[in-house]
């Protein structure tokens, strides 16, 4: 069994993993401090015959220190997180010239609309594939998502992508693959009886392979 996160294959995935690691280091250090202090105190100050606890009600300076130090650490984490977050989720900061795809989710399938060889959506050569997400490597992909029925959540674990798909709303994500291969698309929001099998495959092609696949599929659909 593999420990930790699944392999990362998106351009920004490493950044998310590094924030995870940063939080892990900070919290692990604090965890060790707290648990070691706890265990030490339990042993050192265990009841002994004739012993009496010290009559202390508190310590002003200690209170200030253990309020301010967590504040600074958490401010650092919040600041570091915000920068990455807005770059990933604000549609006005999405990369330009991305490949545009559309996904229409419904119980329990992902319907992906691809542009045909003309590279544009809403033209006659568009085609739809169910539960198959194909994309080229090293090129940003922008997906606009809608839902037919209930809330679903578009989850690409290896790309560190998750975005709810909400009926009555359009939501958008972008990502860019760093290598070719086969990956997983799952649904992360409980969406009914078939929620557990609402999955698809993600195929990352080389640019040429993707174009060939796109032409072939568009021709097959027309």
């Amino acid at each position, binding site marked *: 069994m593999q420990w930790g*996160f699944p392999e990362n294959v998106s351009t920004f995935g490493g950044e*998310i993993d590094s924030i995870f690691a940063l939080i*892990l280091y900070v919290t692990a250090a604090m965890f060790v401090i707290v648990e070691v202090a706890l265990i030490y105190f339990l042993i050192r100050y265990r*009841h002994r015959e004739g012993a009496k606890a010290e009559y202390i009600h508190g310590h002003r300076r200690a209170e200030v220190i253990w309020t301010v130090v967590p504040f600074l650490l958490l401010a650092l984490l919040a600041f570091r997180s915000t920068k990455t977050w807005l770059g990933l989720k604000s549609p006005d900061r999405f990369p330009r010239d991305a490949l545009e795809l559309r996904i229409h989710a419904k119980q329990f399938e992902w319907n992906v609309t691809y542009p045909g060889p003309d590279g544009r959506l809403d033209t006659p050569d568009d085609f739809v594939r169910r539960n198959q997400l194909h994309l080229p490597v090293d090129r940003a992909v922008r997906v606009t998502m809608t839902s037919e029925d209930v809330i679903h959540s578009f989850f690409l674990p290896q790309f560190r992508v998750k975005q709810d798909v909400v009926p009555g709303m359009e939501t958008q994500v972008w990502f860019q693959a760093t290598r070719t291969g086969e990956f997983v698309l799952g649904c992360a929001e409980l969406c009914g009886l078939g*929620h557990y099998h609402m999955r698809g495959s993600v195929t990352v092609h080389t640019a040429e392979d993707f174009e060939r696949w796109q032409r072939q599929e568009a021709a097959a659909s027309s």
Partner: protein
Amino acid sequence: MTTVAAVQHTAHALHHDDRSFIRKYIFSTDHKIIGIQFLFMSLLFLIIGGLLAMLIRWQLGWPGQPLPGGAALGETRMPGGVMLPEFYNSLVTMHGTLMIFFAIMPLLVGVFANYLIPLQVGAPDMAFPRLNMLSFWTAVPAGLLMVAGFFVAGGHAGAGWTSYPPLSAVPEYSGVYNGQVFWTLSIIILGFSSLMGSVNYITTVINMRAPGMTWFRLPLPTWALFITSILILLAIPILTGALILLLFDQVLGTGFYLPERGGQPLLWQHLFWFFGHPEVYILILPAFGFVSEIISNGARKPLFGYHAMVIAIASIAFLGWIVWGHHMFQSGMNPMLGATFMSTTMVIAIPTAVKVFNWLGTLWRGDIHFHAPMLYAIGFVAMFVIGGFSGVFLASTPVDIFLHDTYFVVAHIHYVLFGGSLFAIFGAITYWFPKMFGRMMNETVGKIHFALTFIFFNLTFFPMHQLGDAGMMRRIYDYTGYAHLAGLRPLNEFISVSAYLLFATQLLFAGNFLWSLLRGKKAEPNPWRANSLEWAAPSPPPHGNFAETPTVYRGPYEYSAPDADEDYLPQDRPPVQRPAPAPEPIPAGG
């Protein structure tokens, strides 16, 4: 004026108790009986909720395998012993619902706010005893309705305890018909019970404190329950409103949350979490209070930073109102809002950290007695810390992209609610059991139960962090079809076995509880040599609690005071008039 009235009431109540059996034990207005009624009811739901979890763990440990004897649950649930996805969804929904609304919340508030507040403030009963009785007898039909949902055609609710529409509102989407309506109605009714309780708790603390019981002499459990009651009073109406709209969508064909009828699914999420995050603190603040009480008592040392502890609880309660959006980072909500909610969420970690450090400060230079309640309280601190830290990962919006709706969240909530709240509840039950029933729980069995629960709890829930890191989604009936999850079978099996051992260990607690109820060692009025007023009353206290309204001379945590003969100094013990020190001799020639 209140005090005078209270004294008269007490004298009258103690005069002679000639209430009939029904008035005394069933339709009782005595806060202690009502607390004990809530105790039996919520422990029953704790067992049911635990059994549902055991079924969930069967399917996750051995997906698709027939459960020996499982066929008895019927064709619509486990035909041939193999679980159906619709039953799995109901199990997940009802485990969360029963544990949160019918077990942990009433255990913390229904039981202990009822039982402790009047005793700790030195009052003969609640401000509104009949309203209090009504509060319990409103919770009963809510519970019956929730249980009845298991037996209606189409099965029980299956949209998760968070009940997100459209799934929860449209039967064609969920495959669940009346179960979902039973769920909604039951929670609406339960809300009225909580409201009636909270107005009572708030009024009692404000108006019925004994002479000398100033605000900053209140024991921490009463402070925490008082602040929690304010949260309940303000949060429950929001949930009730949201639920009524959901009920209309379910049965009247309205579309408040349904886009095809002009509604908005995210409206529910905002309303639900605007209630739901204060709810999270409703489920932990009382535990903070119990643990503070027990740790100070076990360490025989004043609670470190009493004022800081009260301020921390109040700040958490306030900040709890402005963090709800962190449940919705990936919901499609404006990402700028996500950034804002992340900041407020990080801020709420600060008062939480302050509390942990103050518990450590209380142990520092103490004289630590490891009685069973103390072990549970220490276990609480050790594990609540893990739940707090895992919350920081989820608060970070980019990391949450990956971890949201995975088992990491499941691990987090169980470290907070089981490692945290439930350990505090075990501690509190063991600590106040002698007061409630006049008998001690068995110490040795309590210690064994603590040790085994501590071990199996960690073996069950710590590996769930790894399931989340691996990308395993929560509420998923069968993960084996996913390439990235198929390798998680052995780890899930390990978790399931640990969960069964954890459940089996709870039989020790149940056995100890029942045995001690009938055969436990008789308890003195103050077996833990504690300071707060409940220990000044007999064990168990009679109707009306105190023979005479106590007078309070000091705070509740005066342990090991240098001028006291013993290592504790009860709040109601009059100060000793020590002779004035002899005047300094005047130096010769001065």
